[in-house]
């Protein structure tokens, strides 16, 4: 019944594919002004500006005060924000941005191209992803205060998609210049160009933003205040949605088991828009140096034993899309529709294990192996329990190993003392940024989380990924990614399972909260509330 709910909803929305951002969804209603929006967030941010950190809680809050050059519609097509026009040279090496005039920072100082140049250089140095995203930036020219030109040494076809407020924040040069960005207090009390002013941040509790009366769009923002509450407990968030003390939350902010019950409540709305900027794909990741999983046959056997649909149903109540490949189904341009050649077939699995030399012992067990899991996400343990149950049937005895996040990162990425683990990666806005890092042999970097943890090394794959990273022709680029996924499916360096469905839950009085690809991670300048 929940599946039906989603398909009919999706069908209804497909008919209104969002090309016009400002129209929001089905309203001819006139936006009302005023009110306070209560935004429930799942965890505490470590900084209110996503400059040195890209943790989701920081991303959620950063864009409210600090904006980006562009915005994107649901298909990740760019729209104006701080930049009003842009031109990319045919060779893909010059990006010229015309900047919006008469924009002021919250402290009254003007926004100019100098801030853009400074921010991009800063992102290159301290931003966890910016280093790679802007790696090819040779310089940022500022011929006049309202023009910024990014000059690249090599093409970067993903760059134009990287310019949302949360991903590439444009920060005030006059506040960061000459200071240490890691400890600059702007991260605790941000000044930016955004529609909301920072009011207060009580750690462990909440952050409050207020309407910026001098915002560059005189009609925006529409609400008076945004209160961001950090509520770590999913049950508490459920209660808050129910009794109306919480207006909006995203990334499925309640326990999946609660969704059915909440969907029956008339005052709640569930939407899937605004989640296309960072699809996640959950995988079972192998350590290709493990004594067991270095053997292709063993990996194939495990692949034969996992029924993705059953797993999705068991651990996520079906809230997600099965994916055989690491590029999420949501990234339609690059996702390969090919299925894994290793379908659910326990007999084949057993045969392969026998062939690999791991026969069943007198106790019916072929070998014992520990399984780790990324502790973020309530479903992690369940996936391991599911895996343990199914692998038990083919004679592999799995022992689940628990540890906290830091110990997990150290074990998998630094010490590499693992055999296989349940993990998840965000595709981010482009496979070069989100997917290459996992399968590119040159990104095998011990000590760096979410790098090539498996130690996968295939020169053909390397060539494809490196080619796609600088390929300007979208058709050629797409083919490179498809070819990569074909090899991936055969070699099974890890097993992609599913892409979680991230729902935004909101009170029906909230409108136009997610007109862009990044949904509520945007500056939410257009959101308005019923009286």
């Amino acid at each position, binding site marked *: 019944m929940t599946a039906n709910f989603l398909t009919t909803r999706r069908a209804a929305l497909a008919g209104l594919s969002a090309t016009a951002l400002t129209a929001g969804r089905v309203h001819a209603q006139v936006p009302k002004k005023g009110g306070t929006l*209560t935004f429930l967030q799942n965890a*505490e941010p*470590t*900084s209110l500006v996503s400059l*040195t*950190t*890209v*943790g*989701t809680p920081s991303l959620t809050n950063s864009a409210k005060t600090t904006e980006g050059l562009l915005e994107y519609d649901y298909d990740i097509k760019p729209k104006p924000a701080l930049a009003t026009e842009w031109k990319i040279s045919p060779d893909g090496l010059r990006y010229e941005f015309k900047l919006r005039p008469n924009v002021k920072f919250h402290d009254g100082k003007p926004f100019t191209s100098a801030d853009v140049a400074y921010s991009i250089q800063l992102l290159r*140095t*301290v931003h*966890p*992803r910016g*280093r*790679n995203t802007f790696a090819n930036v040779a310089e940022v020219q500022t011929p006049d205060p309202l023009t910024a030109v990014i000059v690249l040494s090599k093409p970067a076809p993903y760059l134009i998609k990287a310019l949302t407020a949360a991903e590439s924040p444009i920060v005030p040069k006059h506040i960061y210049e000459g200071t*240490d960005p*890691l*400890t600059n*207090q702007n*991260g*605790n009390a941000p000044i930016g160009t955004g529609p909301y002013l920072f009011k207060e941040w*009580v*750690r*462990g*509790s*909440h952050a*409050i933003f207020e309407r910026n009366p001098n915002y560059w769009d005189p009609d925006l923002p529409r609400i008076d*205040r945004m*209160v961001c*509450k950090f*509520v*770590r*407990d999913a*049950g*508490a968030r459920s*209660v*808050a949605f129910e009794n109306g*003390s919480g207006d909006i939350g995203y990334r499925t902010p309640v326990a999946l088991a609660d969704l059915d019950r909440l969907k029956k409540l008339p005052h709640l709305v569930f939407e899937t828009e605004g989640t296309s900027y960072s699809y996640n794909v959950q995988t079972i990741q192998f350590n290709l140096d493990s004594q067991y999983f270095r053997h292709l046959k063993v990996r194939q056997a495990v692949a034969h034993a996992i029924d993705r649909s059953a797993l999705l149903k068991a651990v996520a109540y079906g809230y997600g899309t099965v994916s055989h490949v690491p590029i999420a189904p949501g990234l339609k341009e690059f996702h390969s529709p090919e299925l894994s050649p290793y379908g659910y077939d326990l007999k084949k699995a057993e045969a392969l294990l026998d062939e690999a030399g791991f026969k069943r012992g007198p106790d019916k067990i072929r070998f014992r192996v520990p399984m780790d899991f*990324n502790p*973020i996400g309530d479903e992690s343990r369940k996936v391991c329990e599911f895996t343990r149950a199914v692998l038990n049937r083919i004679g592999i005895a799995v022992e689940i190993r628990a*540890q*906290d*996040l*830091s*110990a*997990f*990162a*150290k*074990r998998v990425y*630094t010490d590499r003392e693992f055999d296989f683990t349940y993990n998840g*990666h*965000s595709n*981010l806005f482009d496979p070069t940024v989100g997917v290459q*890092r996992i399968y590119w042999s040159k990104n095998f*970097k011990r*000590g*760096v*989380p*979410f*790098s090539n943890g498996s130690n996968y090394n295939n020169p053909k794959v390397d060539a494809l990924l490196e080619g796609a990273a600088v390929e300007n022709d979208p058709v050629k680029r797409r083919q490179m990614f498809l070819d990569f996924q074909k090899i991936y499916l055969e070699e099974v360096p890890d097993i992609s399972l599913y892409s979680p469905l991230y729902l935004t839950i909101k009170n029906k009085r909230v409108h136009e909260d997610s007109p862009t690809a990044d949904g509520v991670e945007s500056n939410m300048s257009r959101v308005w509330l019923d009286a």
Partner: protein
Amino acid sequence: MRMGRRIARTLRRTAIHAVPTMLGIVVLDFLFLQLMPGDAADVIATEAGSATAETMALMRERFGLDQPVLTQLASFLGHLARFDLGYSPRFNASVVDIIMERLPNTVLLMVTALGFALLVGIVVGSVMAAWAGRWPDRILSVVVLLLYSMPGFWVGLMAVVLFSVKLGWLPNDSNMTIGSSFTGWALIADRAAHLVLPALALASFFVAVYARLVRASMLEVQRQDFMRTAHAKGLHPFLIQLRHALRNALIPVTTVAGMHLGNLLGGAVVVETLFGWPGMGRLALEAVLGRDFSVLLGVLLLSSFLVILANVAIDLLHAWLDPRIGEA
């Protein structure tokens, strides 16, 4: 002994004793914490879902995480000597600020819970002692024993189901209605409403402890000589209970309560997590998981300081309650 001189002696003794103890605690804890795998940079990178070797190196270098252990320890002690608890890489703020944000919340919660537990515990224990062996005692004994046996957080969960979910009378998260601007009585009422369930969850266990203790002590005291003298003097039995038995029973009770107060910081971890109470317990847990040693050591230091303080307070309280207690 005169009270004033007594206080001075106790304080002096404590100070001489306390400083090396706290120092020892800090050093040992620091070394012990190094055994935890991973560091703050690992956590921040993993939480974020992305990292590069360079940004992690930058962070480590900035916060001295790549230094050898003894260098870090020396640096920490150096800061401590200047009454500076250091800087948190995770929260990007000074440790003192972070702790001060949360400390009042924990103090409020614990003092409320303990105060409530003491009050109820003493009353219940007195009633049990007064009617010892008869049915009020027996019934209350069962109730008290149940309270003693139920996990506090479970009591909290059941209370949430009843008062928050089913009845909707009380909130189940945080310590106030965020974003509201109450003043005066409305403010107090809002804070109080949020305080009820967490304090109840914490207090349930303590009520049982104090009740049992008061009962046992009062029964013990009743059989002593001076009580028989008081009886012989013809004093009203209830007055006897109140003035003499209770006063003497308060000694072990306050000792235990003092110990509990001293354990203020770690004791509330589970309840604070359950109710999203922004207190020190949750802060400590977050610091452990986030490998934020600066904050964690700050919390541990504060905790040991509080224990020592609590011990001093108990000593002085005892001297007042029973002047016969001489030098320990």
